């Protein structure tokens, strides 16, 4: 990976061969990253993959064992003080003072950035407005909802106008509505040209927000590219439907066996049957409808969908993204989430 690209522009974040171990645990086993200015990189991986370790090294909180990491052209180890002047960090929990008001929280951060008093005030007002907290500005943060606290936390990370922002699982623990609110805020930051590195274990989140995605697992980058490129890797579209009468599943599988590119898969428990159909999308869909009709199998929600990042993760690692717990134990195959549900489903009508 070249440090400077063809046009001579240096990336906002550059990481090469980064390693870090905690005793026996090799959290990072040599990762490379390059994030061009003004873009959003999604770092996707299950719990314990090494995402937080990478963020902690890049934000000068942790020393790496080997490799190098540069932010805005400065080495995070040798020039940590300089790096701190150009970064912002919002972590997995709201690092705010709950006893203080939203405004007080931001003003204290402003004072720590050595802004002058009037500037501190106006910057706080500006951020409270931008993050939809203006009405709650003078209430203690304790009274805020989880989503509001996380937005305040994000606002706090922006007081110093960072050029590079690190968001470590910004929506973990938020309810779906608060998550969408957070996405809007993150999108607006990206639109303003802030370089963003965002870690997440939610596949749909990376898909929504990131220009480029790297997938890491067990401390290694196992795939990189745009969401689209990653999805293409597992080869085209998927036809999927549910068979309400579980005893008819074998008939359904037989009916579609010939149209698919691979073996159909069926889940006895949920009744979901699916098959990869490569690039033959709509033709395959029509054949499937005819085949199922001829076999007299009743189906629900027959659809052709683009593969989700969940499918990608499954294909790359052999396990679903959220199966694995912090301690590395596998929880079994049942925790698999359908991240792609809402996005690319095109129903057959």
């Amino acid at each position, binding site marked *: 990976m070249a440090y400077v690209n063809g046009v001579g522009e240096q990336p906002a974040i550059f990481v090469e061969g980064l390693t870090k171990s905690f005793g026996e645990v090799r959290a990072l086993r040599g990762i490379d990253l390059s994030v061009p200015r003004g873009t959003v990189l999604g770092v996707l991986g299950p719990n314990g993959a090494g995402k937080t370790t990478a963020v902690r090294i890049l934000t000068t909180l942790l020393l790496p064992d080997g490799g190098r990491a540069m932010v805005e052209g400065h080495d995070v180890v040798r020039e940590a*003080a300089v790096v701190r002047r150009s970064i912002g960090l919002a972590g997995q929990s709201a690092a705010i003072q709950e006893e*203080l008001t939203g405004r007080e929280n931001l003003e204290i951060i402003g004072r720590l950035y050595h802004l002058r008093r009037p500037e501190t005030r106006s910057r706080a007002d500006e951020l409270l407005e931008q993050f939809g907290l203006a009405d709650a500005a003078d209430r203690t943060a304790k009274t805020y909802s989880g989503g509001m606290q996380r937005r305040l936390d994000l606002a706090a990370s922006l007081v110093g106008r960072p050029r590079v922002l690190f968001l470590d699982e910004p929506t973990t623990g938020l309810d779906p509505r608060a998550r969408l609110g957070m996405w809007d805020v993150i999108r607006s930051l990206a639109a303003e040209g802030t370089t963003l590195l965002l870690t997440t274990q939610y596949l749909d989140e990376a898909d929504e927000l990131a220009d480029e995605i790297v997938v890491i697992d067990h401390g290694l980058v196992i795939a990189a590219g745009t969401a689209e490129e990653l999805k293409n890797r597992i080869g085209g579209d998927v036809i999927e439907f549910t068979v309400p009468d579980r005893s008819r599943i074998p008939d359904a599988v037989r009916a579609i066996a010939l149209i698919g590119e691979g073996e159909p898969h069926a889940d006895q428990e949920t009744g979901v049957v699916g098959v990869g159909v490569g690039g033959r999308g709509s033709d395959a869909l029509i054949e499937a409808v005819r085949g199922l009709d001829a076999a007299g199998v009743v189906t629900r929600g027959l659809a052709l969908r683009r593969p989700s990042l969940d499918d990608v993760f499954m294909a790359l690692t052999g396990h679903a993204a959220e199966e694995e717990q912090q301690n590395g134990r596998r929880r079994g195959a049942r925790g698999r989430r359908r991240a792609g549900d809402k996005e690319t489903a095109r129903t057959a009508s």
Partner: protein
Amino acid sequence: MTAIAQPAWAPGLAHRIRWGVSDTLTLTRRSLLVWLRVPAYLMFTVIQPVMFVLLFRYVFGGAIPVDVPGGYVNFLLPGIIAQTAAFATFGTAIVLAQELKKGVIDRLKSMPIARSAVLTGRLVADTGRMLITILIIIGVGYLVGFRFLNGFGPAVAMVVLATVFGVSFACIAAYTGLAIGDEESVQAFGMIWLFPLTFVSSAFVPIQTMPGWLQAFANHQPVTYVVNTMRALALGGPIGDNLWKSVAWLAGIFVVFVPLAVRAYRRAS
């Protein structure tokens, strides 16, 4: 490659000191604001020592014969003040553990602020808190019969000694808070070291009333030396070895625990 050619940002020493002080004061203000904002904190830090004063003065005091001018209440007050200063450090340890867990310390460490400011800000705020509590106890003491018998200067010296003693314990507490990093464990651990040190000392009872093996501990630990010195400053009478032994202990605590606390802060995650 323009950014690489830029000189690293390196302000002069005077600048750094000014910013260090400014950052410390900002964080001190933050901590005191939190303290004032939560009535429960305020109540506990003030009411608990007042309760101790009343409890020992009126409940246990009658049963404890002491040989100081003015009787047990005069014996008691310096002891209660030292105990209060020591117990105030529970707050230091717990708050640091909480901030660590919530990511507040990560946020501050990732910002371009003076590296020392988080710890010094915490210690300055806790010292202020300690001092206010000490003055309140002296006030309550006066209401229940306590009197300084040795003049104004030594009385001030007593308050200063109590505060320095409290700060030394706050350094131990800061280390435990950052090294353990879990609120409940920190609290439990605080009990384990603070209770024996404060109660198995000359703070509440004359050491001669304890069994011999306990006297051996009580006679040679820092709280006893500090309380004896404070008592001599408040009431008059010989200070003897107590002052220099107090100073030696406190200096020893600072020498050991300041670097430990700083190291724990650097490593904290």
